């Protein structure tokens, strides 16, 4: 168990567990309470982290993790409670004094200037000068040195706009370290990373920890918690419910503490396939040949079910709206059969959005698109929906809901033309529909007249799931169906997806969460730079096999793809045959 012996505490399993002496603690937050209007985000929350510890702060959405960390980094002032950093009372300090005291927070959304170089971004606000001018050479040298010592290697002269997401995150961490941070807070840092990038991040964080730095990692991914942390603080409803040494607990126990009851984990379904460096850190990776628990007893190597496809794409391409030469989606072909879930894995930003929007009718594309054998390429969004296509969009707050509309009105979005009598909306049927969906999908609070904005993220997502799955459909596009949703709602949505599949629906599941893809899919495709680089049967799709595809290191389109590619590209070929 890496680093567990570094912790100065003896094993404990509750908030009252024996804690180290107060002056050994890098962070001590006591009785933190914070109100936003009438909402209590923190309710007597506690956090104790000794120096040199990798500490995971876990909890469902809305448990108060981010609020607590923002109080620590000086963005919010607590309504009650005390904050001590390195033994000094700093309750209610400012972000400036937090930075000066070495507390740095790396936010979920990067705050970088894309047109500046790595070095310029890192030193921004503290630029080294030579006389009146910016000393670029020194900035680049300093960034290089800092990168070498921390393991965060990025070329200082490159423009941030040209970096990958993983590299941009490294720059963000470098920025914090440049300002002298010894206590590093990371808010959901792995949401946008591929598995190899996650591994690199872990290496960097361990190195920081080994040099005496303190790291607090906000996450709700249990495999990450197990892989990286020394100690865990679990929050629920704004309060600290548990403080546990990582080596003394299990994912199931953490999940129970987070939710307050027993839950089925996605990881259970795949038999703990996510490699845990904490348990096999010496290079002995999990073997890909290990027997897989088959989800429905499907044949190990049956690639495509025999049923005719419910969804069929042939050489579908989408170009960028501002640049017709850049393909967001590059000649993608695949089929999804009734009763099948095709999972699309890949680092975000590799064409998944264009794929889903092209199928839904929200993006222009070239190529063929068939729904139950019928060519729907010329149909609009509404006609495709009427032809049996349901769509859970990846961005529920932008696409999926009208946040200021009430729940009942949101439950008919996209099908409003089926709830009319003449030009009028049929309020009675809308209300009846709302009552039925709210009870069938357990949307809380069960009040159809509340604006969707007033519901929690998980319940907002349930509105969308209820609308799209609580109706007659044959094909479902499920894009990031559980993003930002708490463990209980994830469990519920996963079960809905499995039930729909078992009821003969065809489902295209797009998710950045590999564990989710592996837990639900019958086949797994990987997208990289707008292309579908492989489609594999679930049984041989493991993180080790998929990882190289996700980073572009491997490229092995399956046969149906090459056929499609040939059909799509004759125009570019030389016709004179001069050099055959």
């Amino acid at each position: 168990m890496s680093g567990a012996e570094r912790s100065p505490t003896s094993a404990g399993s509750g908030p009252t567990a024996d804690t180290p002496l107060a002056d050994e603690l890098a962070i001590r937050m006591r009785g933190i309470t914070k109100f936003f209007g009438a909402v209590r985000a923190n309710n007597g929350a506690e956090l104790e982290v000794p120096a040199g510890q990798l500490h995971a702060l876990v909890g469902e959405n809305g448990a108060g993790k981010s609020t607590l960390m923002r109080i620590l980094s000086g963005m919010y002032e607590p309504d009650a409670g005390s904050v001590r950093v390195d033994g000094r009372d700093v309750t209610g300090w400012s972000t400036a004094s937090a930075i000066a005291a070495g507390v740095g927070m790396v936010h979920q959304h990067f705050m970088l200037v894309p047109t500046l170089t790595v070095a310029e971004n890192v030193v921004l606000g503290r630029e080294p000068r030579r006389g009146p001018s910016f000393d670029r050479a020194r900035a680049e040298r300093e960034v290089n040195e800092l990168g070498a010592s921390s393991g965060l290697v990025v070329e200082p002269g490159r423009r941030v706009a040209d970096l990958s997401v993983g590299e941009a995150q490294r720059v963000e961490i470098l920025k914090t370290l440049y300002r002298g941070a010894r206590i590093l807070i990371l808010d959901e840092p792995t949401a946008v990373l591929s598995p190899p990038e996650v591994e690199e991040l872990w290496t960097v964080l361990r190195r920081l920890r080994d040099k005496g730095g303190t790291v607090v990692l906000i996450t709700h991914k249990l495999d990450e918690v197990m892989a990286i942390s020394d100690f865990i603080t679990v929050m629920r409803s704004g309060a600290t419910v548990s403080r546990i040494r990582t080596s003394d607990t299990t994912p199931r126990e953490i999940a129970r503490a987070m939710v307050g009851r027993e839950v089925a984990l996605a990881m259970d379904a795949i038999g703990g396939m996510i490699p845990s460096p904490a348990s096999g850190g010496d290079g002995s990776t999990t073997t890909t040949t290990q027997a897989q628990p088959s989800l429905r007893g499907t044949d190990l190597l049956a690639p495509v079910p025999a049923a005719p496809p419910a969804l069929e794409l042939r050489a579908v391409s989408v170009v960028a709206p501002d640049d017709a030469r850049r393909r967001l989606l590059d000649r993608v072909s695949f089929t999804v059969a009734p009763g099948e879930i095709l999972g699309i894995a890949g680092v975000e930003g590799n064409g998944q959005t264009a794929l889903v929007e092209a199928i839904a009718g929200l993006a222009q594309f070239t190529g063929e698109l068939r729904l139950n054998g019928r060519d729907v390429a010329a149909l609009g969004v509404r006609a495709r929906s009427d032809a049996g296509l349901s769509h859970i969009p990846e961005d529920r707050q932008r696409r999926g809901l009208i946040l200021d509309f009430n729940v009942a009105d949101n439950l008919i979005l996209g099908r409003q033309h089926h709830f009319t009598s003449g030009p009028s909306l049929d309020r009675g049927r809308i209300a009846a529909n709302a009552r039925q969906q709210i009870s069938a999908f357990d949307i809380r609070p069960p009040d159809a007249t509340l604006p969707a904005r007033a519901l929690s993220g998980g319940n907002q997502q349930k509105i969308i799931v209820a609308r799209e799955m609580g109706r007659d459909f044959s094909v479902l596009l499920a894009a990031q169906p559980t993003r930002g949703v708490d463990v209980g709602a994830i469990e519920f949505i996963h079960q809905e997806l499995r039930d729909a599949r078992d009821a003969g629906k065809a489902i295209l599941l797009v998710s950045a969460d590999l564990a989710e893809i592996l837990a639900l899919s019958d086949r797994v495709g990987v997208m990289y730079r707008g292309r579908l680089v492989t489609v594999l049967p679930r049984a041989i799709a493991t993180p080790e096999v998929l990882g190289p595809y996700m980073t572009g290191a491997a490229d092995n389109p399956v046969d149906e793809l090459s056929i499609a590619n040939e059909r799509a590209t004759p125009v570019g070929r030389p016709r004179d045959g001069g050099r055959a």
Partner: protein
Amino acid sequence: MSSGSEAEVTAIGSPVGPSGGRRDRLAAALLPPLMALALAAVVGDLLILAFGEAPREVYRLLIEGTWGNAYGLGQVLYKATTLTCTGLAFAIAARAGLFNIGGESQIAAGGFAAGTVGFLLPAAMPALLAVPLLVLAAMAGGGVVGAVPGALKARFGANEVIVTIMLNFIVLALLNYAVSSHLHVPETLHTPEIAAGVIPRLADFSSTFRGSAANLSMLIVVAAAALLWWYLFRTRRGYELRAVGLQPDAAEYGGVRVGSVWTRAMIISGAVAGLGGINYVLGYKHYYEEGFATGSGFLGIAVALVGRNHPVGVMLAALLFATLSQGGLAVNALVPKQMVDVLQAVVILAMVTSVPEVQRVLRAGLRGVRS
């Protein structure tokens, strides 16, 4: 209120917590305008004191000169009728997420169309036929002017703020040209009197309203407001229009063709503004005159903001602004009538700074101007 009232209260209310009941949401909708009025009253008191007058006396005069007698009331109703139209015009465009600053030219075009068609009608045409025809002409005139920015936005993404501002200049100049060089009665800047289709004044029924411009156009305008309420909150197209205004991406996801909604909303908006032209042209002077509604298009924006883009709110706000405007004349002996302009400005500023959806509309408008 009827079963669906929560829909519009929700749509105009600010974000509320999960515990927000219907009453809370109604309060959230009504509080900002009431606060704005209270603030205006305080500022008004200070101004009046600064002029060395007693606030109580000035307010008494203001009320007496407006709601206190038939003439004043008639003038308030007349002014409110015009402002209701331009306010509704701005409101429906705003509900679709558009910032229609073209009320000035749309109401002028509506009045021009009604006046021109009106004097061309045969004098013998019965009012029952002529009035609806001229009302339709007014709406068509405004609707055409509104359709241009709507269609340009839908087709080319042209920003409606810029297009409507530019159209104000173009349309008003064109109308001036048409009237001054071809259609005017010699020695004047107005068209010939309409031959048929006059809308009766209140003074025709009761002599106490003698001299006031109030006329039965107001009934047509109230009916239009009711119809717009039904359209916005009770029909599928209204649902889609509001969806586009709140979140165009989500509306598109919901199968709504956003461009068509923009065009349709701007046509309706222009038509409602144009309808405002009948108040003067058919109900008061019986001819189109250059500049007959100058300023009412812009004041309509304030009316819609204070009325929170809701037809009922717009009518109430129009009454408020009409009262202030008429009241300014009544108190002129004690304080300069510009004082009420200051009060209007205070009401508008207080609303703008307190209401989230107003801020959203303004931000969208500013973004458009910058791009």
